[in-house]
């Protein structure tokens, strides 16, 4: 065998990449493969790179088997399953030296598939499918399941676990389980007879996935909305947020349908566009329901006018932005963190909004609940800034926990009795001196009625064009935003206590940063880490930046939007902040962070040596 040292110690630590054609059912096969490794107790990471297309274009799935439980991409490919002849050349190039490539040998090996430093293995998958299955569509689907069997033999994955997973997926269709298992077995037997099983890349049982789940962020966020008590979900379909409202609706159908009457305790409304979706959210929130919408960057652009109204008229709203690559239509099926500035200041005039930054599906679940509490408490739009990587990929995360003692914070909403006890109700009067005023819900009583408007209004809720009256309200809104600083979640800080170098990141960069810190530590570079969870920035964010000399701001966009926001909204000197930017559309790797930090510190050291000389 030609493999080098590099693959020798790669038990439970390697990357499989599967090159497929979209629309062929490969996603289910790949999820099956990943899940079976997860069930063997070995931590895994899965990333789906799919085109904005229904059928026929190249698609890739990357599975990182990671005994250290690193959830980011490593940047390596140790085993390429090349099922798409169209992309052979590219796929071959990507394999790391010493790695493996598997192709369908039904057809003669492509002249493209030549490389000396890797092992190329062929298996006649299409031929085996044609011999054993009938029907064109079926043969295509079964070919994918067959390579799962092939890999089970090569990597020593427990075939019984695969059967168990198929049983769970097709509980009501036993015939499908049998057909799939037949394909798995054919692949498995073929590999055992004709291929060098097992490969040095192998799976060995561990016990590191107990108490964990594999779930995507959109599913978790949809579930979070259920637990937050959301009842109205207006939305407009847009990748990559669509599956979030789908998930909310599916959970509601299951959990909130009255078994006797068939009545549904929720309303998911597919709007005519994003403008209508956010308008419905505002109408429902104004009327006392917990309402939210899920969208992506282009949707936020369209919603902006209404977002300004919600800010100024102080109507709660929860908006999930599952970010994708911009600008414009951009690359709808690729990931970025590119809407920070858009959302922080959405709409014309002086506006500022609360943002939450979940870093994985577990946080999507909990932050959905937090977003509703904050929106109700602050009577303002709250954005949960997810992204395609978190939203649409399955992440291994701790089993979601729920505290039955939780009760929604509906904020300052006056009951009928409370309104009646007042001499007079004034909607925008800062009675508690915390920037947050009292509201009433339609229907409560004639005495509590007021007019919600985006035009100039005074603190009593009346229309105004008077400068002083206008400013009283605008200045109170500033106080309210300051109050928000004390209510939003504080950052997570991991400090060594000795380093004056800091890494600052948000959201899905978390996995890459964690791994990068470990690698840097092994090289003797200690770096502290602050994971910001919300905007406006809390005092802890200021303190971390004040106590570190050099700060690397890691983010997934071209223009350093987080760095911009930090320089605009805190006292940190701009010169302290060094950007590490990743905006290819693929999830970030630790390698980029390690290299950027090492290079900058190396340069700095050289510069100081030069200065000393």
């Amino acid at each position: 065998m030609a493999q080098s040292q590099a693959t020798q110690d790669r038990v439970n630590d390697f990357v499989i990449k599967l090159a497929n054609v979209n629309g062929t059912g490969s996603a289910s096969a790949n999820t099956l493969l990943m899940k079976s490794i997860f069930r063997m107790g070995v931590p895994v990471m899965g990333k789906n790179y799919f085109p904005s297309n229904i059928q026929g274009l190249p698609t890739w799935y990357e599975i990182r088997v990671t005994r250290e439980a690193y959830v980011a991409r490593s940047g390596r490919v140790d085993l390429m399953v090349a099922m798409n002849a169209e992309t052979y050349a590219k796929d071959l190039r990507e394999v790391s030296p010493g790695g493996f490539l598997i192709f369908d040998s039904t057809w003669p090996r492509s002249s493209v598939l030549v490389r000396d430093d890797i092992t190329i293995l062929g298996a006649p998958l299409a031929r085996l499918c044609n011999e054993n299955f009938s029907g064109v569509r079926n043969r295509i689907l079964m070919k994918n399941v067959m390579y799962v069997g092939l890999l089970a033999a090569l990597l020593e994955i427990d075939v019984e676990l695969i059967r168990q997973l198929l049983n769970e997926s097709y509980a009501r269709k036993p015939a499908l389980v049998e057909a799939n298992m037949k394909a798995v077995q054919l692949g498995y037997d073929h590999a055992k007879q004709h291929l060098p099983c097992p490969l040095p890349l192998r799976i060995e049982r561990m016990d590191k996935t107990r108490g964990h789940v594999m779930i995507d962020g959109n599913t978790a966020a949809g579930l979070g909305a259920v637990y937050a008590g959301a009842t109205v979900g207006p939305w407009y379909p847009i990748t990559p947020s669509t599956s979030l409202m789908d998930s909310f609706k599916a959970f509601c159908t299951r959990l909130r349908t009255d078994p006797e009457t068939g009545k549904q305790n929720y309303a998911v409304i597919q709007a005519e566009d994003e403008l209508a979706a956010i308008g419905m959210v505002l109408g429902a929130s104004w009327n006392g329901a917990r309402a939210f919408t899920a969208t992506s960057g282009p949707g936020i652009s369209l919603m902006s006018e209404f977002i300004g109204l919600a800010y100024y008229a102080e109507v709660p709203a929860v908006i999930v932005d599952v970010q994708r690559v911009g600008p414009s239509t951009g690359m709808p099926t690729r990931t970025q963190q590119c809407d920070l500035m858009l959302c922080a200041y959405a709409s014309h005039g002086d506006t500022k909004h609360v943002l939450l930054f979940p870093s994985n599906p577990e946080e999507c679940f909990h932050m959905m609940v937090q977003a509703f509490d904050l929106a109700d408490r602050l009577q303002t739009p709250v954005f949960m800034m997810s992204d395609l990587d978190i939203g649409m990929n399955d992440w291994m995360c701790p089993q979601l926990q729920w505290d039955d003692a939780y009760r929604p914070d509906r904020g300052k909403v006056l009951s009928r009795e409370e309104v009646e006890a007042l001499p007079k109700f004034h909607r925008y009067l800062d009675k508690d001196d915390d920037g947050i005023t009292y509201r009433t819900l339609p229907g409560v009583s004639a005495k509590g009625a007021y007019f919600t408007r985006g035009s100039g209004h005074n603190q009593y809720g009346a229309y105004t064009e008077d400068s002083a009256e206008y400013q009283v309200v605008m200045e109170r809104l500033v106080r309210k935003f300051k109050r928000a600083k004390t209510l939003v979640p504080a950052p997570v800080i991991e400090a060594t206590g000795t380093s004056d170098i800091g890494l600052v990141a948000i959201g899905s960069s978390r996995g890459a940063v964690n791994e990068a810190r470990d690698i840097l530590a092994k090289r003797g570079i200690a770096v502290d880490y602050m994971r910001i969870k919300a905007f406006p920035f809390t005092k802890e964010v200021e303190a971390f930046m004040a106590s570190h000399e050099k700060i690397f701001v890691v983010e997934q966009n071209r223009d350093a939007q987080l760095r911009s926001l930090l320089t605009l909204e805190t006292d940190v000197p701009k010169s302290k902040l060094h950007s590490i930017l990743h905006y290819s559309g693929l999830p970030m790797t630790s390698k980029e962070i390690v290299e950027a930090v090492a290079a900058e510190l190396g340069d700095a050291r050289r510069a100081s040596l030069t200065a000393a000389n």
Partner: protein
Amino acid sequence: MSFINKPKVRHPDLPKNELGLTRRDYEGAMSTLCAGCGHDSVTSSITQAIFELSLRPEQLAKLSGIGCSSKTTAYFASGAHGFNGVHGRMPSVATGANAANRNLHYIGVSGDGDSLSIGFGQFAHAIRRNVNMLYICENNGVYGLTKGQFSASADIGTRSKKGEENQQAPVDPCLAALSLGGTFIARSFSGDREQLVPLIKAGLMHKGFALIDVISPCVTFNDHVGSTKSYEFAREHYHEAVHTDYIPARQEITASYGEGEVLPVQMHDGSQLRLRKLDREYDPTHRGKAFEYLRTKLRQGEHVTGLIFLSQSPHPDMHEMLQTPDLPLSQLPYEALHPGAAGLASILKRYA
């Protein structure tokens, strides 16, 4: 606008409705529209209608967009919550509000610019969803707040105050609503209170989307000779085809009608509409014929008013389509909305 605030003193003999409230209890803030604006007459008719219906002011939610028409919601029922949204987007706010609480009466007031240009999409989709609301389009064919541009309802050949002639085809909200599956479609004239008040009552009690397109002349920018939305033109060319009488559930029907003239229609709340056909040929329960009648009259230069169409076939409103419970979604107890920690553990099994 008028600068005299109404005195708070009340005459002890003012007529009272079933709730013991007077018409004054249904008034709103002082109008700031131009003296003689058709919209103020509409406001007056709305006030009268909700007073006569004996609705509690807080049972009503008022919604509007942006423009002269959208100011109207501030001028009636100050005891009702109001929402003045963004331009052309009142229907979505009303839809969301209605989704949250099905137990209030929703009255949306919009204009021809707000509904037929910038908000045409939302207008159309609220009709398609059959949102249970009364939607009044105060239609004057012109943009008032921005000083006299044509709106999308301006007729071909109508002249602006500056003398420009409109050459683009108008959007007729009633024809549009007919084609979009509207279930209650009426047209009226702001100056015809006798026609308008019962229509507003019927529209509020209709279960589903009720559209009333009210020709409401703009005295400042569109009331000149050559305009097809002036008071004079409206009086001459807008003709009632069907007159509607609204009879509340509790009231005995006493009026006598001639044979074949009246079509009684039962409303879901027990009230009754009696449609008096002024044109014997006309059938306001047939969508296709209503469409054809409107088109034919338009070709003759006549604008049909009255209850143009009322669906007689069962037509689910938004809540029926969504299968929501009788209790408003905003009032469901939190405990009923999720299965707690134990339920979560069972949900998560398939992800482990």
